[in-house]
């Protein structure tokens, strides 16, 4: 039966990446049909995964694993249970339609191949994310979705708004990614498991751990940033800068659901505590209401949909927070319903945009006749969004109210919030599905026309699925809902989905209330929008602006730090360097017992004997004196010539020291070098109009002098301490003993240079040659180039300062 299960499951996550790499080439060869060709990949994945439904519904998760970093016991492991299968089926199924749609939507775009490649790469990352069992793999795929989202939002990179939105999304979601990595590492450390399935088996270990709170915060931060929960929601509306298929796929149906997926995944590990329930319910509820009201403010259809996506994400998080069996079932059904209707509506808006040239709700009307297929698609998705009977949206809403309708005060508050949120979503759903198509015909920038087959296929199929899945209630309940719910709660969940209307149940009346409220809001939409916009104008501050302030603050701070450290004043750099040089010399010497070694307490009495004048002969003392005289003359020299001659004096003294202590070769070389230096320096100096004297201010001279004395003292003390130790002369002994027998040379120093360390000498010669070439280049360049032109004002100023 072909490749093993392990390989084929892993191929599911890898195949889209391969297709992504090939996408530009496929586009080049197939042109307008690229979308259809590339859609084969997600369609095949969908069918492959569909085959697992029965097995997973039977309670047997599918596992696959290959070695990744065996030395750390990390495997690239995948797990297909009800939850990941539901997500993966949505990703590959909706993805197939989206790829077909993208082919038609960007027909003729020069970078369509690149776009399709990004889309497929994202799909691979997303599939990997939901199928991964290993936490590090989960993190890697999580970051890959952020990266592909960045590339897709910034697809139209010539526009600044798109670049800003892309960076914003990347910054916010990567912040969450880092939190996820930290959280995963902490969980691994606490449980010793890399696989989430393994962590799930540790039971209450995480919940009882003293580190439960930080781990919870990290995972919530990751989920909230990805799933645009208040107050990290602001990046999602900006992400609408991306082409419409991206908004439909990444920013409503799949990527933003990764946070919801993570929370669902972690429910058996971190969930069911007071903190978990309270945090998720509060943040989810606030996000739901905030998103609902934001949607009312917009007139751009995509922005309206984006805001309702935020609201829906809030609703999903709230349901996970509630955590009861019915709430979790509602979350699964609502995730499916939302993916169908929201992706369908987004694609429909794309068709509208394509066919009329505008997405402005107030500039569209009466398109029913000119765009009949789009209208049908819009209504199909719209009824699911409103939650009318016979749609999967209705099932989700009923299940939700079933899970929330309890009699205690906090439950009633949550229920009211959810009803209000659903009503707002319903109002927006009616507005998007009806407004552009009904009423008086409005002139549009482009003469209105229906989209091509590839364009309308996606929204139509998604709209039909929203109803078809609901009609197959029993299958949906048994094959999707029950396995997914069971995977989330780690205990069997039973589906009680039904399409029947029960007039005696409170659930029906709650639904009726939702619809009535939604209709009322819809009829007052324009008035409400004006009111909300006025309120916004009064506040005048948004999270979006806050992001800019934060980012620019960071850039300014980086600039200030750079200017502080990298100020460009050589003198200060050198002061710092030599201060640390002095510290590096003296601090270890003082702390590691250098003083005791140099002057042992036992030898204190005989102190004078060790430092007697007769250590050096008279002529040796004379050479030392010459060196000191040269150095002092150098420091106090009143003009250039004295300075140069003093330099020569100290150099000659060094040469004489070499001579006195048995190094004639060194002495000879040093003589040559010193004489040449003095000659060359004199030649050059006479051509420079330089300051005769050192014009350091007194306090600078004091500071520099102190540092210099400390450096000198440090070197002396360190060297003296070294000299008290024993020298290992083994290597020198070998050279002395073998110089004549092996190398046939009597001058041992020369033998070392040209024989034992010949390559070293070769390097030395190379350095000299390189210096010579560089000098030649500098002097040659002088003739042609002349002076480097300076801005006139600066040039004058510098001249003024020098003279």
């Amino acid at each position, binding site marked *: 039966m072909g490749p093993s299960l392990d390989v084929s499951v892993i191929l599911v996550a890898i195949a889209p990446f391969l297709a992504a790499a090939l996408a530009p080439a496929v586009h080049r060869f197939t042109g307008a049909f690229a979308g259809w060709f590339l859609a084969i990949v997600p369609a095949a994945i969908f069918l492959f995964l569909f085959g697992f439904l029965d097995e997973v519904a039977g309670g047997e998760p599918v596992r696959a694993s290959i070695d990744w970093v065996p030395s750390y016991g990390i495997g690239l492991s995948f797990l297909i249970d009800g939850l990941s299968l539901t997500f993966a089926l949505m990703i590959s199924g909706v993805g197939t339609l989206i790829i077909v749609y993208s082919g038609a939507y960007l027909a003729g775009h020069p970078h369509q191949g690149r776009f399709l490649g990004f889309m497929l790469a994202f799909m691979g990352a997303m599939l990997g994310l939901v199928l991964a069992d290993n936490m590090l793999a989960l993190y890697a795929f999580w970051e890959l979705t952020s990266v592909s989202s960045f590339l897709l939002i910034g697809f139209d990179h010539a526009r600044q708004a798109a670049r800003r939105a892309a960076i914003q999304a990347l910054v916010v979601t990567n912040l969450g990614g880092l939190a996820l990595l930290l959280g995963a590492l902490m969980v691994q450390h606490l449980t010793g498991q890399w696989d989430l399935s393994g962590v799930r088996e540790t039971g209450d270990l995480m919940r009882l751990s003293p580190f439960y709170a930080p781990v919870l915060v990290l995972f919530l931060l990751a989920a909230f940033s990805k799933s645009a929960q208040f107050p990290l929601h602001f990046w999602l509306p900006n992400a609408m800068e991306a082409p419409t298929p991206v908004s439909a796929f990444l920013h409503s149906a799949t990527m933003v659901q990764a946070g919801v997926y993570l929370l669902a995944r972690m429910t058996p590990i971190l969930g069911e505590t007071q903190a978990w329930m309270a945090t998720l319910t509060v943040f989810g509820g606030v996000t739901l209401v905030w998103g609902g009201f934001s949607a009312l403010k917009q007139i751009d259809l995509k922005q309206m949909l984006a805001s309702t996506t935020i609201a829906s994400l809030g609703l999903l998080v709230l349901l996970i927070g509630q955590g009861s069996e019915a709430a979790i079932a509602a979350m699964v059904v609502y995730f499916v319903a939302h993916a169908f209707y929201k992706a369908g509506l987004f694609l429909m808006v794309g068709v509208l945009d394509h066919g009329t040239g505008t997405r402005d709700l107030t500039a569209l009307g009466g398109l029913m006749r000119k765009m009949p297929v789009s209208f049908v698609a819009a209504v199909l998705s719209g009824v699911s969004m409103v939650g009318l009977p016979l749609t999967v949206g209705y099932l989700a809403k009923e299940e939700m109210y079933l899970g929330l309708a309890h009699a205690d005060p906090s439950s009633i508050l949550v229920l009211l919030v959810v009803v209000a949120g659903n009503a707002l979503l319903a109002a927006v759903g009616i507005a998007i599905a009806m407004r552009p198509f009904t009423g008086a015909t409005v002139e549009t920038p482009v003469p209105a026309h229906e989209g091509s087959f590839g364009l309308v296929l996606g929204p139509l199929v998604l709209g039909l699925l929203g109803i078809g899945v609901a009609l197959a209630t029993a299958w949906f309940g048994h094959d999707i809902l029950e396995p997914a719910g069971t995977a989330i709660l780690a205990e069997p969940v039973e589906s009680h989905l039904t399409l029947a209307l029960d007039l005696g149940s409170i659930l029906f009346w709650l639904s009726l209330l939702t619809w009535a409220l939604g209709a009322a809001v819809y009829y007052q939409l324009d008035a409400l929008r004006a009111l909300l916009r006025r309120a916004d104008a009064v506040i005048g501050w948004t999270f979006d602006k806050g992001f800019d302030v934060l980012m620019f603050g960071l850039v300014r701070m980086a600039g200030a730090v750079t200017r502080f450290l990298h100020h460009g*004043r050589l003198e200060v750099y050198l*002061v710092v360097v*030599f201060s640390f040089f002095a510290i590096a010399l003296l601090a270890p010497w003082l702390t590691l017992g250098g003083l005791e070694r140099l002057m042992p307490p036992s030898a204190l009495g005989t102190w004078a004997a060790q430092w007697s004048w007769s250590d050096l002969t008279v002529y040796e003392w004379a050479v030392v004196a010459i060196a000191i005289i040269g150095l002092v003359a150098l*420091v106090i020299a009143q003009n250039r010539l004295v300075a140069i001659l003093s330099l020569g004096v100290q150099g000659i003294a060094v040469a004489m020291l070499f001579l006195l202590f048995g190094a004639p070769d060194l002495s000879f070389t040093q003589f040559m070098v010193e004489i040449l230096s003095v000659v060359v320096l004199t030649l050059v100096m006479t051509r420079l109009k330089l300051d005769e004297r050192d014009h350091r201010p007194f306090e600078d001279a004091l500071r520099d002098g102190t540092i210099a004395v400390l450096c000198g003292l440090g070197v002396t003390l360190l060297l003296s301490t070294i000299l008290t130790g024993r*020298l290992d002369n083994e290597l020198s002994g070998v050279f002395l003993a073998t110089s004549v027998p092996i190398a046939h040379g*009597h001058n*041992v*120093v020369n033998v070392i240079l040209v024989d034992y360390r010949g390559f070293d000498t070769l390097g030395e010669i190379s*350095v000299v040659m390189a210096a010579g070439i560089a000098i030649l280049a500098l002097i040659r360049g002088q003739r042609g180039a002349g002076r480097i032109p300076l801005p006139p004002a600066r040039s004058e100023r510098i001249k003024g300062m*020098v003279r």
Partner: protein
Amino acid sequence: MDYIIAGLIGIFVTVGVYFLLSRSVIRMLLGITVFGNAVNLLIFTGGRLTRQVAPIVPEGAETIAGAANPLPQALVLTAIVIGFAMFIFLLVLAFRTYQSLDADNTDNMRLAEPEGGCRPPLSY
């Protein structure tokens, strides 16, 4: 006697560092030369000082006893030559800089890094 030479090396280092901290490029160059001499002496002295007996094996002999340590001498010889090459290169560089910028003072050499530095862009 080693300790006295160690003290002398300290004086070399002091003068070298003091000149290196100057703002005049030519003075820094003098500082590099003095500092280089200090380091050469440091290596030489670190191999212990031996009076007058050079490590040269007499004609007919296989080896020599009590000679100066040849290893530091070989190291220092290399260092002297490289130091000289660098000194001449820096001298020419300083000379050309003076010709081009009319400046010997490092504070005035701000062609590559203008005063105040460049500001990072505040946009996307």
